[in-house]
């Protein structure tokens, strides 16, 4: 009995030792949103390998596609003391928990020690605590292969559309593509309706709407916010209503079942580079348009707006900064990730590089479309999700079904619940 006990004790101790990683002072822990299905993943991983080969250090990277859960898990890691050494994350209100509490180091403090830190980055795009890689624009991706009639093609020749024109396009698309099995003009999923919610509010209320949020008590069925969001009901007959975000995106870039999809410039990386047959999307047959303008008759401003900005960047955690060896590694890692060569790779996927020295030898038709978007609108603003209190935008997203189905009572409840959390 005693021998069995001793044997078990030895086995358990051995297992515990196997489970323990060797503590290695030359390992840098990094987290970014260049993971999962993000189109920047390949470029990011290649840069990590390059950094490891040149420095001899090891990078322990835990990256994932970003969504509300991922954002919350990053903040939770900081709360529990498990923060990474280098973090590539959002700026603005989303990062407020880690910036306002001093969990990440400011650019000003970094440059006191390292005056040349990220000096290639354009000062206009530099954050207070983070170094950006690429900026983004958000627009309506349009698969032109579905625009088969002369009337639809006339719409393609325009720079932007009004809301009434957009509705007309949807009706004509359905008529022109009746033979396409499972066709819906707009790829949409109520599980990821973020861009539609943000753009319909922006288009209706103008660029200052997020700075002047109403009080929850003021929201009624006739309030401007309610009317704006319920405009999505006019698109209900044209939306694909997929159960998951992946199915929604596939409808546009993979299976040729939808003609239009609203997303950011990073999405361009999902679209095929080579010519595709039939209605399948590729970089040559896809155009990008600004979100349609909402007329004054529907409570809008009649102008076109763009959601754009440099809303992500690389941070150094205070924890890493206070460790001399990790500080050195973190600085070199971020400079590798934000060098002119690196930003050239990221910009090839999509987005506006934060470094003015970046030259992309051959831009695809799609990249040119995206870069030309700012010239086609009357104003630019950061997304509502970045301007909302951290973790609260999900509340508005939760009520997407009510906006799309025209349920004004539920819409009022949802808007009130969201605004209550902004206080």
């Amino acid at each position, binding site marked *: 009995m005693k021998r069995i006990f001793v044997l078990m004790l030895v086995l358990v101790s051995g297992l515990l030792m196997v489970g323990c990683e060797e503590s290695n002072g030359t390992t840098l822990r990094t987290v970014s949103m260049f993971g999962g299905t993000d189109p920047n993943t390949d470029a990011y991983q290649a840069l990590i390998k390059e950094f490891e080969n040149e420095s001899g250090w090891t990078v322990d990277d835990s990256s994932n596609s970003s969504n*509300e*859960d991922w*954002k*919350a898990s990053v*903040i*939770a890691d*900081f*709360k529990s003391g498990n923060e990474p050494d280098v973090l590539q994350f959002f700026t603005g209100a989303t990062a*407020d*928990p*880690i910036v*306002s*509490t001093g*969990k990440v180091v400011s650019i000003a403090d970094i440059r006191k020690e390292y005056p040349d830190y990220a000096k290639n980055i354009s000062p206009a795009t530099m954050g207070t605590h983070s170094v950006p890689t690429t900026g983004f624009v958000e627009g309506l991706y349009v698969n032109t292969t579905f625009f088969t009639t002369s009337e639809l093609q006339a719409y393609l020749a325009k720079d932007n559309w009004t809301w009434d024109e957009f509705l007309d396009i949807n009706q004509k698309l359905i008529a022109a593509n009746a033979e396409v099995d*499972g066709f819906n003009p707009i790829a949409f999923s*109520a*599980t990821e309706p973020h861009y539609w919610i943000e753009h319909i509010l922006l288009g209706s209320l103008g660029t200052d709407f997020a700075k002047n949020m109403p009080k929850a008590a003021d929201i009624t069925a006739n309030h401007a916010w309610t009317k704006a969001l319920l405009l999505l009901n006019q698109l209900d007959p044209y939306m694909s209503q997929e*159960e*998951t975000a992946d199915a929604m995106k596939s409808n546009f870039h993979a299976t040729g079942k939808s003609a239009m999809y609203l997303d950011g410039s990073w999405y361009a990386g999902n679209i095929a580079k080579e010519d595709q047959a039939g209605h399948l999307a590729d970089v040559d047959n896809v155009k990008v348009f600004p979100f349609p303008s909402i007329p004054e008759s529907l409570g809008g401003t009649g102008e076109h707006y763009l959601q754009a900005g440099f809303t992500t960047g690389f941070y150094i955690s205070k924890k890493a900064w206070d460790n001399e060896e990790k500080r050195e590694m973190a600085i070199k890692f971020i400079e590798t990730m934000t060098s002119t060569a690196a930003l050239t790779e990221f910009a090839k996927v999509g987005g506006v590089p934060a470094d003015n020295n970046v030259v992309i030898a051959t831009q695809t038709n799609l990249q040119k479309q995206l870069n030309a978007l700012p010239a086609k609108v009357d104003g630019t603003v950061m997304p509502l999700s970045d301007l909302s*209190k*951290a*973790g*609260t935008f*999900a*509340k508005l*997203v*939760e*009520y*997407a*079904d*009510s906006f799309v*189905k025209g*349920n004004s009572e*539920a819409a009022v*409840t*949802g808007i009130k*619940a969201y605004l209550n*959390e902004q206080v």
Partner: protein
Amino acid sequence: MYKSKVIPYLFILPMFLFLGLFLIYPFTVNIYNSLFKFQHSLDPNPVFYGLKNYVELFKDPTFKASFVNTISLVLLVIVFQTGIALILSLLVHRIKVFQTFYKVSFFMPIIISATALGLMFNMFYRKDGGMFVQLLELVNIEGFVFLDYEKTSKAFIFLSLPVIWQYIGFYFVIFLTGLSTISDELLEAADIDGASSLTKVFRIQIPLLRNITRIVLVLAITGSLKVFDLPYIMNPTGRPNGTLHFLGTYMYQKSNAANIGSAAAFAVMLVVIGFLMSSISNLVFRPNQDL
């Protein structure tokens, strides 16, 4: 050593310390946090809010919906999950041939990960080409939508189905074990007295399973109160408009929001609800010392 009164306490001390560190301490901090309002999860200076987090929770329509959905699930679980498990155990107990095959088959769903199960049922329910839809089309039932978010009661039933189905096997095994402890002599004596099979089931086997049934019900109730994985995979946002959230999934969403005091209050409420329901179950099915 066996006469010493100190040594037993020394043996339980490690586990007590573990429980203290990972259960009692966090729970106490959670209760404390529920009395404050946070501006974000790392807020170093939360404002004292008293019981307002709890009041706001009770006024929150999504919380009310998630509570009703969870209680409805508990009722479905009591009737169908434990009911079907009991019926299957009674049937399997009677057969001699292929008994092991049935035991293994009914137990299989337990070992499938809830994530895989949720993804599987999402594919089964798909409007275009889902397996269940295709099966219905074989019998000329076209256009049936399983997760129809415009008819929330219908969507609720089909969201609950995999949750109920997954654990039938677990309780089936517990009931089967309970049945095997019932003396064959009792059943033989009943045979001699001319009792029918149904009479033996209702007058002998089920009454003698009272204590087992109590344990199964407590497990089923507490398990369904904290259900999270399957509903989250299948409907993470509680569509439509959060009305199909369960307490577990809504609490998870609250934990991602800025005011974690509200999420803390939610967690406390969940414990209180669980405790109340377990107590009610124990009261209704008082253990019978004679069995």
